[in-house]
Every structure is written in structure tokens, then in C-alpha cells.
């Protein structure tokens, strides 16, 4: 699928681009969308490759009488791939580096080291100017529907900005903004309203429309529904799913709600303290998590189905809080809270690798992996 900017620039006439077509209201397939349709993302071409990505923030720390310059190892050597059409979920506790990862990929933050390849182009070291064409391809949806929209701009202005910056839809910007509003299920007549006149869910839709304005291929969604009420959350999730389907978008989807992740993603990466500890297909992670942290995470998630006669799960309760990323534990970072930790865990950092013995498909960074299947019961 070609999305060269030139092709889109004259999108007024018959565009060759699927995405552009799909965005035309008349062409929107309106039918009960079958989400989670089996698809062959495993073999799709790689869209985003992140390799050995590292981000250390320099911080000043006061210890006693002296001031130390140290660094927060927010993201410490992570690698993953997002393929065309794939939705990769990123989970982990607060402060483990999820947002930092998303900010690195969108280059809101400069990586300390590592490569971020988009369609093979390394954007890790690009200057803002070189980056601009790529900005069209990678967009972001933010968590806070209140702070992510400029309160001093009308919806129309908000949606026009990306068009103007990238010279899209020349001459029919207004029509295009209306289309975008329709696309996310908002009344196009509200184009002259200010964000304060919308509810949280609606604002989140505007944020999504803004991301879609440049017809991106990859969307980084950093907790896009966490701030929303349950009922609204479901609406937005449905919208995202539909758009993903229709526009064949790829997602890096960050969330802490394991239900949401399970609902939306194809594959999942679990982060702990700046590192990916387990990564694999959704099915494997949920049914057979191997890393103790993943297991703890899954077992901690409250489950509504307990009242529906689902057999009680094995409960794993982690002690304490994650250590400080300034001074992470040696060896395996999880060892301080791990019930299986042994001497070797403090000495050797376990590599993220495929454990052949399990016969499963996910990679894990653990010295003592063990498949646990009883954590999440399948209801269906």
C-alpha cells in the first residue's frame, strides 16, 4: 500500500490510496464490524521496528549533603516490531516507561540510543525537518481528553492544523474537517465549537480525528480510554476498532487495563521498570503467561466474571512497589518482588528469549519461567 505524500496531495481526484478511499463517507462500510477477525498479521510486512531503544533522563538528586547527577532509566534497551495491521499492546505498572516509549517513537523525546525504524527508515536520529514527512505516518492519541485539545481553538482549527502543516486536502480543507468529524461519529456542524463544549468522550473522538487527519499508518495510543467513564470507554473502543479495521491501521496501544488490551490487541508486550519482560501473541500471554510478573499482573486484575461462576483463580499478590528506575536492581529487575528469585537473578540479567521448552510462542526474560494457565479462565 502506497502512502507517499504526493499521492495524497492530490487526493481530490481518484486516489489510489485505500485509506483515502475509506475516509470518504460514502464509501464507509457500514455494517456490523466483525472485530478481532482472524488475520494474518504475523506475516504482514514490518511497519515499525524498535531496536535496543534506550532513554535515560538526566536528573539531579540530593543525597545527604551532596548533589548527584544520575539518570532515570525510563526505557532501557527494548526491542519490538509492529507489523502492518497489527495492534501491539503495551502493559505494565505506572512508571515502567510505557509513555516514554510512545514519546520516543513519536520523537517527542530524543532517544539516548537505539533505532526506531519506520518502514526501514531509522528515525531515531532524524532532525525535525527530515522527520516531518514521517510525522504523517505516525500519529498519536493522548490519554487526557481535556489537556490534549487546545482550549483556545475551535474544533475546525484543531483539525485543520495538520492539514495545513502537511498541505493536505488543499482547497477543500473545510470539507475534509467535516469528513473527519463524521468519521469519528461527531456532528460535522459542530466544527465551530470549542473543546470545552464537548464531553470527555467526544473530546477523545476529536483527538482521534486529529490523528487521522494526516492519514497515518501507525497510531500510538497512550492510554486512550483510561480517563473515560465505563460507558464512554466502550464507545471509544468500538470506534477505534472500527477505524482500525476500515483503515487498516497499525497500533501501539498502551493501557494498564488488561481487559482493554485483550479486547483490542493482537500481541502484547509486558514492561517492567524500563524493560520488556514478556512479549507474545495475545492468546499465549493470557492463557499461558510465563513470566512471574505477567502472571502477577493477570492475577491481580479484578474480574467481573467471578460472579458468573467462573472458578476462582490462583491469586498472586506482589509485595511492595516497583523499585526506583534511577537505581534499578541488578540482574533481573523483577527479582526484588519475585517469589522465585534466586542468587542468579541478582547476578545475571535474563535475556528476552523464546523458551523452547514451553512449546509456546512468546519471548520471556526470566531465569525460571513457568507456564501458568489457571490465571485467566476463558469464559467462552
Amino acid at each position, binding site marked *: 500500500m502506497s502512502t507517499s505524500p504526493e499521492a495524497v496531495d492530490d487526493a481530490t481526484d481518484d486516489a489510489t490510496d485505500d485509506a483515502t478511499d475509506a475516509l470518504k463517507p460514502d464509501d464507509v462500510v457500514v455494517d456490523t464490524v466483525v472485530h478481532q477477525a482472524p488475520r494474518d498479521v504475523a506475516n504482514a510486512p514490518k511497519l515499525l521496528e524498535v531496536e535496543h531503544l534506550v532513554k535515560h533522563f538526566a536528573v539531579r538528586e540530593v543525597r545527604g549533603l551532596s548533589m548527584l547527577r544520575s539518570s532515570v532509566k525510563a526505557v532501557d534497551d527494548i526491542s519490538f516490531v509492529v507489523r502492518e495491521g497489527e495492534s501491539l499492546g503495551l502493559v505494565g505498572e505506572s512508571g515502567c516507561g510505557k509513555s516514554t516509549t510512545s514519546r520516543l517513537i513519536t520523537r517527542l523525546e530524543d532517544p539516548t540510543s537505539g533505532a526506531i525504524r519506520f518502514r526501514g527508515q531509522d528515525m531515531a536520529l532524524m532532525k525535525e525537518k527530515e522527520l516531518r514527512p514521517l510525522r504523517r505516518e505516525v*500519529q498519536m492519541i493522548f490519554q487526557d481528553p481535556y489537556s490534549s485539545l487546545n482550549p483556545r481553538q475551535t474544533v475546525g482549527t484543531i483539525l485543520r492544523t495538520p492539514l495545513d502543516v502537511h498541505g493536505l486536502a488543499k482547497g477543500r480543507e473545510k470539507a475534509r474537517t467535516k469528513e473527519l468529524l463524521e468519521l469519528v461519529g461527531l*456532528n460535522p456542524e459542530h466544527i465551530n465549537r470549542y473543546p470545552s463544549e464537548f464531553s470527555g468522550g467526544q473530546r477523545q473522538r476529536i483527538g482521534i480525528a*486529529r490523528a487521522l487527519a494526516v492519514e497515518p499508518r501507525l497510531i500510538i495510543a497512550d492510554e486512550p480510554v483510561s480517563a473515560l467513564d465505563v460507558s464512554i470507554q466502550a464507545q471509544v473502543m468500538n470506534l477505534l476498532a472500527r477505524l482500525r479495521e476500515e483503515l487498516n491501521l497499525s497500533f501501539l496501544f498502551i493501557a494498564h487495563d488488561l481487559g482493554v488490551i485483550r479486547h483490542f490487541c493482537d500481541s502484547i508486550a509486558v514492561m517492567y521498570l524500563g524493560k520488556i519482560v514478556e512479549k507474545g501473541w495475545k492468546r499465549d500471554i493470557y492463557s499461558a503467561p510465563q513470566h512471574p510478573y505477567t502472571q502477577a499482573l493477570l492475577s491481580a486484575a479484578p474480574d467481573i466474571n467471578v460472579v458468573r461462576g467462573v472458578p476462582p483463580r490462583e491469586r498472586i499478590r506482589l509485595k511492595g512497589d516497583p523499585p526506583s528506575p534511577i537505581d534499578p536492581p541488578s540482574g533481573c529487575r523483577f527479582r526484588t518482588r519475585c517469589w522465585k528469585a534466586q542468587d542468579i537473578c541478582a547476578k545475571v540479567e535474563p535475556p528476552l528469549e523464546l523458551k523452547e521448552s514451553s512449546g509456546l510462542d512468546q519471548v520471556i526474560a526470566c531465569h525460571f519461567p513457568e507456564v501458568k494457565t489457571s490465571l485467566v479462565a476463558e469464559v467462552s
Partner: protein
Amino acid sequence: MTLGSSAVAAETLEVGVDPELSDAAESSRRHGRTPGQIAWDRLKVDKVAIVCAVIVVFFILIAVLAPLLVKLEGETLNAFHPELINRRNTLPTIGTTAQHWFGVEPRTGRDLFALWAYGAQPSLTIGFLAAVSSTVVGIVMGLLAGYLGGIVDRVISWVIDFFLSLPYLLFVFALVPIVQNRVGGGRILTAEETSSLRFWVLLIILILFGWIGLARLIRGEVFSLREREFVQAAKVIGVPTRQILVKEILPNLVGPIIVSASIAVPGYIAAEATLSFLGAGLVEPTPSWGRTISVASGGNFSAYPLHLWPPVLGVALLVLALSLLGESIRDAFDPTTRR
């Protein structure tokens, strides 16, 4: 939207008009209005604000129409009337009369209404001009420091700290003759030249010391704004920095800027009066409230109250009105007081 080919689909896809924004609710909201317009709407119904605005406009009119008003009174500015002075005590022999609405100045017999009306001019001009200029400087400095951060921020912050540590009144006081000397090219000037030069010198110095507060404020605001997600969104979209500053960040500072400027105006008016009192302000033959207050309070001001009180009332009313107006503007812009 023309998607409604299937009712089910429409529901599933959540397409359609949100009930929240249905027409009933619509009428109760103010749509398509900028926060500035909303603030304006609120100000329009704020009685205090209106009274204050009327007072401010009144004084502006006095200042602008001073020549006309004085002509109406049948006087000219700086005309001396020694014949109206009791030589035994140098006090005027008259109080308010049809010819001299506010009486005449002790010792010289100049018409006090003329001095008062013309005196409003420099007070207001300095107040507004200095407020506008220092606001511009403050915005630029604050934006640069806040958005660029790093070394620029450190330098500007240091300068701010520096100015905050100066005993500024002493400084201003000492600077006036020096700046005057520099600007005047070291020449010795006539009364008229001196008085117009002093005006600019005063203005420059007030601006020099006046931008600090706003710059600090803006810097802090920008610090938090630039972390706001909409700024990040703009970056992700690829909006150039300058455009981010001007189109994304600046409009969000309109509130604090207007508030700060509206509070600065009375501040400068009071500053002019104080400096004139200390002898570092405007000079003859430019009349100004500050100068009249200074002269009148230098003697036995109870002997001829008409000399002191009109300019005191002028300053006090104007300062009060502008401060209250500033507060009303702040409230009008403050989203937390919004319904």
C-alpha cells in the same frame, strides 16, 4: 451524516448527534465563542466592571478632551494669576468659582482644573504605554525562557532574579538623571525639552523594571503548557516551533496577559506619582497628577485642600477602577469561576 443506511449500524458505531448536545441543551450554551468572547459576555453583565469601565473611560475622556474642557472653563494651561493670590500667605483668594472650577494653585494662581485635566494625560499615557510595552517585553522573555528552556531560560531567569533583588526605587531614582543625560546627548535642555525627555525616560525605566513580573508568570505558564498534550500533539503533527508558540501557546496566555496588563496600568500610574513625589518624575511645564500631589503635599496641604485632593482622588479612583476592572477581567477569564 449520511451513514444511516442501517439503524443498527448507526447505533453500534455510535454515529449520530449526541443527546448531550441536543437542541435543548444547545440553547443554554454559548457556542462557537472564544474564551475571550465568553469573558466579554461575562464582563458585560458584571456591574462592578461596568462602573469601573465607565470611570476609566471618564478619565480617558478628561485626558483627551482636556484642551476642550479647559477652553470651556475659559482658561489656558499654565496661565499665572498672581492677582488671585493673597500675598500675605500665598494662598488663593478664591475657592471654586465659575472661572476656576477647582480654584487656583497657591503661590502662582494657575488654574487647578487645567492642571488636573491636563495632568490626567501623562498619568494615563504612561500607565497604558508602559503597561503595553512591558507586557510585550514580558511576553517575549517569558515565552523564550519557558519554551526554549536550557541556557536561554537560565539567563533570563537570572536576569529576573537580578531585577528582583535590586532596591528598584533607589535605582530608578538614580537612573533618571543618567538616562536623561545619555538620551539627551549630554546637552542642557530647555524646560519643554526636559519635560518631554523626562516623559520618555520615565517610560523606559518603568518598562525596564516592569516586565519582570509578567515574564516570570509567562515562563511558569509556558513551562506547564508545553507539557500539555495539545502542544505535544502539535509537535507530533509536525507544527513548526514558531507556530506552536504563536498559535498554540500564546492564545492560552491571553487571560493572564490581559489580567497582568490591566493590573500593571494602575501600578504605573501610582509609580509615576511616587517618582514625581521624590523628584524623579515629570517636570514643569508638563502637568501631571503625581507632580501636583507632590507639590501640594510638600506644604501645608490642609491650608488649601483643593490643591491636593483632586489629583489624589483622580489617582485613587483611576487606580481603584482599573484594579477592580482587572479583577473582573481575571474572573471573566478564569475557567474555575465559569458556572
